[in-house]
């Protein structure tokens, strides 16, 4: 099949060269930051004789190993490990070695550019012609540790994992399959050391796959309400589920073979076999966890989609509590109230708690108001007086006192108020219990609750007054 000068074959498709060029360039570009570090080292006194590329790879090795053990490595651990390595190869003083180690890690997270992704240009061709495009990627990230807000362990990105395990031109899924086949082959031929090396590579490929998938899910989850999520992510999740199923089957098979092999081996090989088994178990364990992440993401999507379907048929989402869900309840309790009054009451109840919620954007907006706007726009937050004005449109003065007495005393919230409505037919004990439970959970002071429990009467009175109020409004 011939090709023409435009880079297309006679059938109109791109030639293999142009089709594969972006991927091949990206493989090269991933190493660019490390080469740049090697070049830039001359700017720093005393760095000239150091092999920065080796240090960068050593850093990735330490981070990836920590990831495989499911323990993130802290900044200090990574820097200390690298500093030790630098001292071994260069005989530098500890403080000098540490300084170089800190620089290497800072470069790998791109601290100089305030941790923006690295950006490299590459050439691609499509129906619009030849274009220079930018490829953005990161190598090393620090992440938040959900269990310790002061800890930020390091994580290698999927690109760094690809780079490190040398699968630049392969899809990571293919790498996983290839490693498993090689393990089977070497195991069959009793070459345990090669089996171990491939098991190690397989675990790293499993990590790379895990990072790739988690990144996709994480980013997509933020846009869970967008239709594109269904189109783009669900097929990926289904493929991932199948892929992991295959990996588990294949690894399970390898584990069985390893067990069978154990009885045939000489004593000196047992240790290697145990290492292989540990690596295989680690792959199986990580894949099991990844599978649950995928299933969870799938469920979240399903619910989001259901919820969207539900919402699209309903009017006024901001009123969803009253108009959509609580309506059956409110029909019997507050049927004579219009939705606006119900919403106003919701706002009123919310306002009974003296709490402000900070919003960075709103804060900036208020701070940057021009002096003229400031004069024209009074602070819109509802103060005590305004709240009473809102509610006075709904209740008589006497009623306001009832509501205030109960709600202001106990900082009642929407939840407790709804419980009150709902508990109309419940026994007094049940009502009291519900109210107390609500108060406790809504973060009121335990002293106050305990005082209220002791007297009991206050709650009872408030409940009666609430009932009275409902009766009147009915």
């Amino acid at each position: 099949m011939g090709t023409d000068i435009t880079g297309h074959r006679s059938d109109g498709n791109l030639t293999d060269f142009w089709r594969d060029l972006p991927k091949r360039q990206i493989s090269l570009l991933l190493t660019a930051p490390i080469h740049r570090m090697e070049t830039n080292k001359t700017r720093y006194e005393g760095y000239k004789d150091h092999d920065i590329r080796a240090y960068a790879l050593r850093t990735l090795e330490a981070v990836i190993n920590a990831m495989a053990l499911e323990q993130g490595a802290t900044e200090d651990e990574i820097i200390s490990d690298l500093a030790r390595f630098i001292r071994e190869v260069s005989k530098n003083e500890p403080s000098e070695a540490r300084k170089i180690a800190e620089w290497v890690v800072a470069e790998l997270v791109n601290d100089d550019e305030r941790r923006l992704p690295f950006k490299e240009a590459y050439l691609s061709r499509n129906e619009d012609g030849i274009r220079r495009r930018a490829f953005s990627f990161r190598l090393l990230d620090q992440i938040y540790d959900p269990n310790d807000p002061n800890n930020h362990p390091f994580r290698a990105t999927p690109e760094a994992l690809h780079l490190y395990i040398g699968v630049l031109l392969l899809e990571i899924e293919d790498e996983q399959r290839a490693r498993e086949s090689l393990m089977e082959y070497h195991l069959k031929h009793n070459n345990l050391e090669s089996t171990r090396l491939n098991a190690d590579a397989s675990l790293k490929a499993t990590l790379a796959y895990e990072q790739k998938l988690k990144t996709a899910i994480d980013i997509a989850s933020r846009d869970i309400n967008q239709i594109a999520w269904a189109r783009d992510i669900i097929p990926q999740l289904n493929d991932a589920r199948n892929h992991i199923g295959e990996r588990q089957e294949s690894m399970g098979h390898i584990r069985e073979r390893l067990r069978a092999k154990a009885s045939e081996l000489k004593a000196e090989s047992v240790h290697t076999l145990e290492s292989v088994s540990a690596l295989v178990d680690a792959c199986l364990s990580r894949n099991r966890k990844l599978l649950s992440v995928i299933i969870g993401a799938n469920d979240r999507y399903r619910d989001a989609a259901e919820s969207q379907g539900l919402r699209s048929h309903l009017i006024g989402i901001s009123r969803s509590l009253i108009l959509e869900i609580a309506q059956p309840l409110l029909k019997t309790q507050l049927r004579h109230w219009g939705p606006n009054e119900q919403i106003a009451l919701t706002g009123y109840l919310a306002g009974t708690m003296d709490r402000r919620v900070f919003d960075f954007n709103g804060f900036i907006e208020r701070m940057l108001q021009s002096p003229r706007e400031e004069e024209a726009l009074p602070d819109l937050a509802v103060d005590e007086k305004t709240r009473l004005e809102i509610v006075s449109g709904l209740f008589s003065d006497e009623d306001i006192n009832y509501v205030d007495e109960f709600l202001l005393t106990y900082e009642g919230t929407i939840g407790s108020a709804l419980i009150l409505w709902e508990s109309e037919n419940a026994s007094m004990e049940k009502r009291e219990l519900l109210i107390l439970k609500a108060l406790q959970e809504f973060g009121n002071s335990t002293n106050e609750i305990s005082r209220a429990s002791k007297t009991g009467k206050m709650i009872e009175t408030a409940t009666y007054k609430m009932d009275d109020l409902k009766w009147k409004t009915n």
Partner: protein
Amino acid sequence: MEDELESNVLAEPVSNIAYDVGRLVSYVLRSKARPAGEAVYADLLKRYESDSKFRTIADGVLEGMGFRILEICELSGLVVAPESSSPWAFRNADFRSGMSVEERLIFGSLSVMIAAYLFPAPEKLEMENSVYPGTLVEDEFLKFASSTSKALGAHAETDPEWGRADLLEVWRLIVDRAAETNSERLTHKTLRGMIHHLCLFLCEQGLFTTEDAKAGKYRPTPRFRVMVRDLAQEQWYALIKKVRGGEHA
């Protein structure tokens, strides 16, 4: 649809749903609550994500209270922002009472610059929530604020899009105050002092944590990224991003 809703609601007493929604709301209102640190919050969030009825009620309650839901994430939970008319909306006096217009504008500008400093480009904002964006050190930020204000001031003079007259004055004030700043003095009259005050305030609001108080070093929390994503739609952030991107520099 109504029948369906009614039957769903009947399946679980509304009191139970409302009770759990109330508990969720109480966590949402605490800006420092973290799902990882509180199992009940994590369970409620799980329910929010997996139970569409529950979520519809919770969304309705929050919206009824005057909140916009910004994002839900494993690290910071359900992040909301009050509408300006919400009784929950933050007031200027909650930040600091008796501020002059000038001080208010400087604090506002510094806030935008903090966002642009930690998230200088959309690519960084779009990273996964789990990625830590790096620290802010007061002294380094001071230099950044000064150079950014200088650039903004220069452009504002020739380009009306680059700021109102009062903001033009603010850029100049920041540059002047930065030049006068003695890092030993942390009063609110110095730019260094104002930056310090603002960082401590962001710590109080659960957007920063202190890494090293003496060095003036802070860590942004995951909640901060969510808030800045919201801010990124606004002209203020775009303004500073332009300077950083060098489009007008």
